[in-house]
């Protein structure tokens, strides 16, 4: 029989995040600080809207781009939150932000064009770029820059083939954010070199030092940026699978084509519930953000006490402590921590080679959970130090 598989697909590595969690689910008393998913339930008023929508029999397809009402609300939301000006025709509602990343790249890339991917970052950029026949170009972000992308770093990797920069802030896994001045520096390079940006802003609601700034709000950038956002992180709606892309109509139109043939439309029920999320849930989101912030402070304080180095992250719900001083790889550290203390974290290397020497720890868990985990982590660190 002939080889039934695509070489391109076979060459792609499966996600490094999941590996540990298969072990965790079978280990008694194990605590996982690994999954990038809010521990809150979706606010009841959103769930209730979903139920109501089913009772009403709204079970048909929506238009390919998504419900008009939802796209209008997305425009309002992006306007009032981030000062972005979009028309409903510039919005595509997708199955999670991940779909938007995938089809955004596919709509923009010709074979061999280069996509710049800063790392450490979310695991899907690289495979999506590869599947879109792009040549991925990695920029290794540095801890001393708080894992921000600098204009200098960007300039160094731009070639004539560069087409798209993926800008993943607030960042998973580092928790790093970029402020307006820093984005302006990036924007200058982008405009000068005439390239485009896919800005993954899925964690935009979760910032703890001033409001999130979208690069698309910087003059001259809206026409060359696809903003990606969604409902999973801000509204604790991961399972509803709903995200969106906002950008120039010219690009969105091509994305709609791929979406129309591959997906048809995002889940109708989720779309109706999402309208409620955007309209009436500011207070609920605020409460969740406050809770995340309290946990973030708790963890950073606890790291200091147990002697784990960590730069202060101001976004998402991750901390990214350094374990370099213990003289082992992230993978070794994480494996031993799981086996010896039953705490699961993700090795930084799951998010790129430059994540070596770091761990991603999620604080989307209750304080009680975090407390127990910190105690165990503290024991582990103490043991490592006494052995040395």
């Amino acid at each position: 029989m002939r080889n039934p598989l695509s070489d391109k697909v076979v060459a792609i590595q499966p996600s490094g995040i999941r590996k540990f969690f298969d072990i965790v689910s079978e280990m008694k008393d194990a605590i996982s600080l690994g999954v990038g998913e809010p521990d809150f339930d979706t606010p009841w008023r959103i769930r209730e809207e979903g139920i109501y929508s089913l009772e009403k029999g709204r079970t048909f397809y929506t238009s390919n781009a998504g419900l008009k009402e939802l796209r209008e609300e997305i425009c309002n939301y992006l306007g009032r939150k981030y000062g972005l000006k979009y028309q409903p025709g510039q919005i595509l509602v997708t199955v999670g932000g991940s779909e938007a990343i995938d089809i955004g790249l596919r709509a923009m890339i010709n074979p061999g064009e280069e996509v710049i991917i800063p790392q450490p970052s979310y695991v899907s950029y690289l495979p999506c770029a590869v599947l879109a026949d792009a040549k991925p170009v990695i920029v290794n972000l540095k801890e001393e820059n708080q894992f921000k992308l600098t204009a200098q770093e960007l300039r160094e990797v731009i070639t004539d083939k560069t087409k798209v920069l993926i800008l993943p802030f607030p960042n998973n896994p580092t928790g790093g954010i970029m402020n307006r001045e820093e984005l302006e520096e990036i924007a200058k390079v982008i405009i000068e070199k005439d390239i485009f940006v896919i800005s993954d802003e899925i964690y935009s609601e979760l910032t703890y030092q001033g409001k999130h700034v979208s690069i698309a709000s910087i003059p001259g950038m809206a026409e060359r940026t696809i903003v990606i956002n969604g409902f999973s992180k801000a509204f604790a709606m991961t399972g509803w699978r709903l995200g969106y892309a906002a950008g120039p109509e010219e690009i969105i139109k091509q994305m709609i084509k791929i979406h129309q043939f591959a997906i048809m439309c995002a889940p109708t029920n989720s779309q109706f519930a999402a309208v409620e999320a955007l309209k009436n849930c500011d207070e609920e989101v605020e409460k969740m953000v406050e809770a995340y912030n309290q946990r973030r402070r708790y963890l950073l304080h606890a790291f200091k006490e147990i002697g784990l180095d960590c730069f202060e992250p101001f976004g998402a719900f991750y901390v990214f402590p350094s374990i370099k001083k213990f003289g082992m790889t992230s993978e070794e550290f994480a494996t031993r921590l799981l086996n010896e203390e039953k705490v699961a974290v993700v090795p930084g290397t799951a998010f790129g080679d430059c994540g070596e020497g770091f761990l991603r720890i999620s604080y989307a868990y209750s304080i009680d959970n975090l407390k127990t985990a910190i105690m165990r982590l503290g024991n582990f660190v103490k043991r490592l130090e006494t052995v040395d």
Partner: protein
Amino acid sequence: MREKILAMLEQNGRIDLKDLAVMLDMDEAALANEIAQMEKEHIICGYNTIINWDKTTEEKVTALIEVKVTPQRGHGFDSIAERIYNYNEVSSLYLMSGGFDFTVIIEGKSMKSVALFVSSKLATIDEVISTSTHFVLKKYKVYGMKGYW
């Protein structure tokens, strides 16, 4: 900041002060001081425990009693209220808008003891025009806590 402290204490009155200080980005001594000050000002009036008595051997019934009264010249509702709330059986008392005046919440040992209290103590107060007693059959959510009842 006071509101943030209160919101946290309202959720968990026994939260570790050291943790709370870290979570709210405050100095621990300053936090303790602020809480003591709010206790002094009676913003914080006490620390309760939320108990599901149904899971104990103790028999308890809760009743809501709607009471209509004739307010007194010069005292309005306040002196009648005082006569009612001084009974230990009364756990809460509210003056209401609408069709009746007071909601009296009573925790008693049995329906009979509650009924006896109403007929012998509450209904016999001169200014009380009428009472209507409603017994709680099942609790679903108490003080924001669900799933325990």
